[in-house]
């Protein structure tokens, strides 16, 4: 208790120097909390994007070999209706599972009636998509990715004959209007005029109708007509020119199948994905299903998430170490000066019979006060800074992204605790080490330090 009192009072007594230590600790803490807030923002945005908006789920169930071969040999490497039923019955009631949903991913050609472009379609359940988009975490973290550039969700339309076009693909097909725009287009019987007339470009742009073509699972040619319900950004340039989305029923209709490329399992706690994926595999294997089950954060499943997060985390660690080193140097320097100035006090304590550890404890108590106050101020500053930055709505175009995203700093409590603990440890180690080294000196040396 007396050590704690000494710590508090010494802090106040030597306030001119301790204020610098406090500033160093607070600045370091605030910087690391903000850095953590930046990483946390991307971690959560990309995670929710991958799980809910890219249709990966927390755990993804493919037929064995389906990840690589489902598009070339769809009949062999996709899940049949009966297999889907078995999986639903086995996992649908698992308390860890929130939802199960089939997805069909295929390729084909999309046409505006005049020209065609290759596409990669993802067919999904529109109702479930609506539900996921309304989730608070998705609303919070994926605000920039949720907004359609134009149009509405599939669930807003009664007809299942609707598609969503990525911005790049819509541009390649010359489409600007969506179904909800309700533009009256004068019917033309002359296809040549439709494509080559003086107002052909405007006509194509105004017409939301497109045609989808693809090889069915039986190897025949299939085609459907659909209207563009919305134009969206995939968020990444890599698939902006090819991505097309549609209700699962439309895609199954196009490919003349009731099969699914994979089943996405949405867990209540996504962090259990790595633990539950092998467990699900074991359970389903016992039911005679040969499957490949992956957690959502595996590189093969979410290469974008893994790639971006690896980069952000590497940069975060680098900057974090840089900040921590600067803080450490400042704190060590200031602590060293403090300890050196008080060598006589140390000598007196040694003369009274204090051994090294109790002396170090006295300095540690002081360092704890500085660390606590510094971290408290640092967290307060970081929170205020985050509020200011987030409210200014700074936007930027990160590499690999199709559109601009908001510059947000969202520190999470566990990160704040980690940063505070690390900074406090740093201060304690700096103070403990310098006082320990100093206390190693002889009593006489310490008592006569000032006399030279």
């Amino acid at each position, binding site marked *: 208790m*007396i050590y704690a*009192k*000494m710590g508090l*009072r*010494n802090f*106040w*007594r030597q306030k001119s120097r301790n204020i610098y230590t406090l500033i160093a600790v607070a600045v370091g803490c605030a910087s690391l909390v903000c850095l953590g807030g930046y990483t946390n923002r991307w971690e959560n945005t990309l995670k929710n994007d991958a799980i809910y908006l890219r249709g990966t789920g927390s755990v993804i169930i493919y037929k064995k070999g389906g990840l690589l071969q489902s598009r070339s040999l769809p009949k062999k490497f996709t899940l049949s209706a009966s297999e889907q039923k078995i999986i639903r019955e086995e996992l649908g009631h698992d308390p860890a599972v929130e939802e199960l949903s089939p997805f069909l991913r295929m390729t084909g050609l999309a046409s505006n009636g005049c020209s065609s472009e290759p596409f990669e379609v993802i067919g999904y359940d529109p109702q479930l998509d609506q539900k996921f988009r309304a989730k608070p975490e998705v609303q919070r973290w994926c605000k920039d990715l949720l907004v359609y550039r134009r149009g509405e969700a599939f669930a807003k339309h009664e007809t299942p004959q609707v598609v969503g076009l990525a911005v790049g693909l819509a541009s390649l097909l010359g489409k600007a209007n969506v179904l909800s725009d309700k533009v009256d287009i004068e019917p033309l019987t002359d296809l040549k005029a439709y494509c080559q007339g003086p107002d052909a470009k405007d006509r194509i742009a105004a017409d939301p109708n497109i045609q989808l073509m693809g090889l069915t699972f039986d190897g025949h040619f299939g085609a459907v007509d659909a209207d563009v319900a919305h134009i969206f950004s995939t968020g990444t340039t890599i698939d902006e020119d090819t991505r097309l989305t549609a209700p699962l029923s439309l895609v199954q209709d196009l490919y003349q199948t009731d099969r699914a490329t994979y089943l996405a399992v949405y867990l209540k706690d996504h962090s259990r994905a790595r633990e539950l994926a092998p467990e699900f595999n074991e359970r389903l294997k016992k039911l005679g299903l040969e499957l490949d089950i992956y957690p959502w954060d595996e590189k093969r499943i979410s290469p974008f998430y893994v790639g971006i997060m690896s980069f952000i985390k590497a940069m975060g660690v680098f900057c974090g170490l840089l900040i921590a080193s600067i803080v450490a140097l400042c704190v060590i320097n200031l602590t060293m000066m403090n300890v050196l100035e008080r060598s*006589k*006090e140390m000598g*007196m*304590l*040694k*003369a*009274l*019979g*204090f*051994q090294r550890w*109790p002396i170090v404890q006295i300095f540690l108590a002081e360092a704890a006060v500085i660390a606590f106050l510094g971290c408290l101020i640092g967290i307060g500053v970081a929170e205020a800074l985050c509020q200011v930055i987030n409210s200014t709505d700074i936007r930027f175009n990160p590499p690999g992204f199709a559109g601009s995203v908001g510059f947000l700093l969202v520190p999470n409590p566990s990160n704040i605790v980690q940063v505070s603990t690390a900074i406090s440890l740093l201060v304690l180690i700096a103070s403990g080490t310098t006082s320990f080294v100093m206390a190693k000196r*002889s*009593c*006489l040396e310490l*008592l006569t330090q000032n006399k030279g």
Partner: protein
Amino acid sequence: MVENKAEREVFVALNSLKKTYLLGETRVEALRGIDLILRKGEFTAVLGASGSGKSTLLNMLGCIDTPDSGQVQIDGVNILGMNEVQKSRFRNEKLGFIFQSFNLIPVLSVYENVMMPLLINKLIPFKERHQRVVDIIKDVGLQAQMHSHPDRLSGGQRQRVAIARALVTDPVLVLADEPTANLDSETTQQIVEMMLELNAKRQVTFFFSTHDEKLIRRVQRVVRIRDGRIEE
């Protein structure tokens, strides 16, 4: 007094104590073979000019410096055979220190300063500590200033706190290195009187250094030191 001295048991014995320092390239013989005996409860002043070896002698007795040769025995214990941990414990339990510049901890109150040595003392039960501190503060006449901080005290009062701190563990030997050097003559007189009183009351051996000739009239025994040698 001579008879009393003979009756008392030998408490501190120094034999052929030598200490040489190197100050740059200069060899300084601080102690040149000191033989000294202190008896239990004795109040002894060591008198000498600056650089005569007084402080070195006190440092040897206080286990805070080691001689080049010779022997130091306190209360039957050869302190030169102790390791650092044993020496720390010995200092805490058996010795009391009074410094010239008081060396109080400025952020602690009088009570807390006096309590400091007890925090690490393993002989005095926790429950007794408070009363012991209060008693010794009363003994040095500072009960009214018990919760004051050193910067609110006069030089004499600060030295009283230092004396209380030195005596709170009931040491067998109190070493005081020029305890009155920073005090005016009146306060010096008061401090010496108080040390004498405590010496009589608690039967604790006092050994203090001074270069003030006026003080020696009040003490039982004076040991003169010159050029590292005793001239009793």
